[in-house]
């Protein structure tokens, strides 16, 4: 009775004591917070770095007209170096374009099969395989382009060089397909099953269900998947460097060799003097690439998120 009285009226004992767990908790909260915002810090940091390195060129030697509209990329010309990326943009765009022509049917077909037709173990096995395929290093793909596709294209089409838009486009398409498949399959999975049931109960065949109901309902997610593939295509470096032939050229056909923006940076950066005009011009290409891939990926992400919400 007496004790109960003091517990109610007096201060509780040890009310202001912090034990070790309190400090561990605070520390971990801080560490997790740093981890959480690291992506933002890195993005801003990288963009700042790339911009600073390329800034000198942007201020002095940069001419908008020359940079985007000249097809002459001749940074090592002794009399008059020119920095035109038109041919490089054409190279990247043509390879990415062909890659999408290859990847879209492959990835949508795979996604529809995995998501709508396969069941049980087949489905699980296929999903694991697709993930594994996405994890193959790009240099391996480049190697396949160089040593298998190259002689194959020369033989099949009777052309002098097998390292060209066709080669790189196919390689890049196969590289981009797995991630596109994953995203597209997620989009199909997000379509409620009652839509399928409703359509089937109305007498639709499996294909009609997919074609008339599931695909339209998933179209935003599928578009997001394609855009992510395009972003991958613009950013890919090693495989493209190895399979395109690396020749500066505006392609007239798929059998022409080209050179990509990314591959140019990778191949030349090591041989330039730090801070030179050439070095800065390469970083300006970097800024350009960064902006393009950023916009593409952001758009894709917003589209995909949009469907998740609704």
């Amino acid at each position, binding site marked *: 009775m007496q004790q109960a009285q003091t517990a109610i009226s007096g201060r509780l004992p040890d009310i202001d004591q912090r034990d070790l767990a309190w400090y561990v908790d605070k520390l971990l909260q801080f560490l997790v917070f740093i981890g959480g915002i690291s992506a933002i810090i890195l993005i801003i940091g990288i963009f700042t770095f790339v911009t600073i390195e390329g800034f000198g060129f942007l201020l002095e030697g940069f001419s908008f007209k020359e940079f985007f509209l000249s097809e002459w990329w001749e940074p090592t010309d002794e009399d008059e170096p020119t920095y035109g990326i038109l041919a490089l943009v054409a190279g990247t765009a043509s390879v990415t374009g062909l890659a999408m022509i290859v990847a879209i049917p492959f990835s949508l077909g795979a996604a529809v099969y995995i998501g709508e037709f396969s*069941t049980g173990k087949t489905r699980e096995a296929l999903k694991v395989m697709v993930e594994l395929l996405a994890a193959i290093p790009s240099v391996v793909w480049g190697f396949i382009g160089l040593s298998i596709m190259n002689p194959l294209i020369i033989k099949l089409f009777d052309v002098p060089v097998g390292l060209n838009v066709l080669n790189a486009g196919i390689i890049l398409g196969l590289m981009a397909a797995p991630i596109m498949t994953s995203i597209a399959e997620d989009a199909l999975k997000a379509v409620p099953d*009652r*839509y399928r*049931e*409703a*359509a*089937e*109960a*109305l*007498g*639709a*065949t499996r294909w*009609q269900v997919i074609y*008339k*109901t599931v695909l*339209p*309902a998933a179209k935003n997610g599928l578009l997001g998947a394609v855009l992510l593939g395009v972003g991958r295509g613009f950013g890919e470096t090693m495989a493209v460097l190895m399979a395109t032939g690396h020749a500066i050229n505006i392609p007239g056909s798929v059998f022409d060799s080209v050179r990509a923006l990314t591959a140019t940076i990778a191949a030349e950066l090591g041989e330039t003097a730090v801070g030179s005009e050439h070095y800065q011009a390469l970083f300006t290409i970097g800024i350009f690439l960064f902006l393009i891939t950023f916009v593409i990926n952001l758009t894709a992400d917003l589209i995909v998120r949009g469907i998740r919400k609704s």
Partner: protein
Amino acid sequence: MNMQASQATQEQQVPEMAIHTRDLSLWYGTFQALHNINLDIKAGRITSLIGPSGCGKSTFLRSVNRINERLGYVRIEGTIDVNNQNIYDEDVELVQVRKQVGMVFQRPNPLPASIRDNILYGHRLHNRDRKYSRAEEDDIVEDSLKQVLLWDKVKDILKRKATELSLEEQQKLCIARLLPVKPAVLLMDEPCSSLDPKGTAAVEELIWELRGKYSILIVTHNMAQARRASEECIFMLMGKVIEHADTAELFVTPKHKETADYIEGRYG
């Protein structure tokens, strides 16, 4: 051609029985959900299926348009005749079964398209032999929506997404979209269970309105609903049919003890 001829003869001699099952048993994997169901469900009437959860009433309903087969591990023995045609015969096409036997689900499931496209979905699937003009399609839409008492409400918003309607309106739309292909039987799996009392009353009224024009089989948890909105009633328990009688009779003078106990609320 053959199909049309047989349809014509069917229309001339309207069968007395809309659904006629003989020794129907159904298994989900190794679990037997239906045991030797023998039922004669009359054409043009509303028949309700009642019974406690898991008694097999939904399973039976879902086997009448073979939507059960989506699951893949369902096995069936016995026959279900719809308008004197066994729908489990080997030469029967699933698509034709589903044209003849429409289904309304527990949760309204309009497709994510416009009201108009929802109504025309089944029609377009089953009439691919010729192109229908816009005016013809408009007529179909108007006629179907009028039959479900929805026309006045939605006639100005036919291009709006069907998923934006209220649940009651969605469920009416789901009934309306079955009508353009002129089904013989309408199956309804607890069509009011996700609606509020007002919506329930409206849909029940609609079902009552469709009496005579279609043969309707309706599964319900709600005994009061079975009593209000059906002419005949089937009581099922543990995958078996216990009693089948006129609704008035079944609720007032049930012949079996199990039926009486269920109606009085001793279980279920």
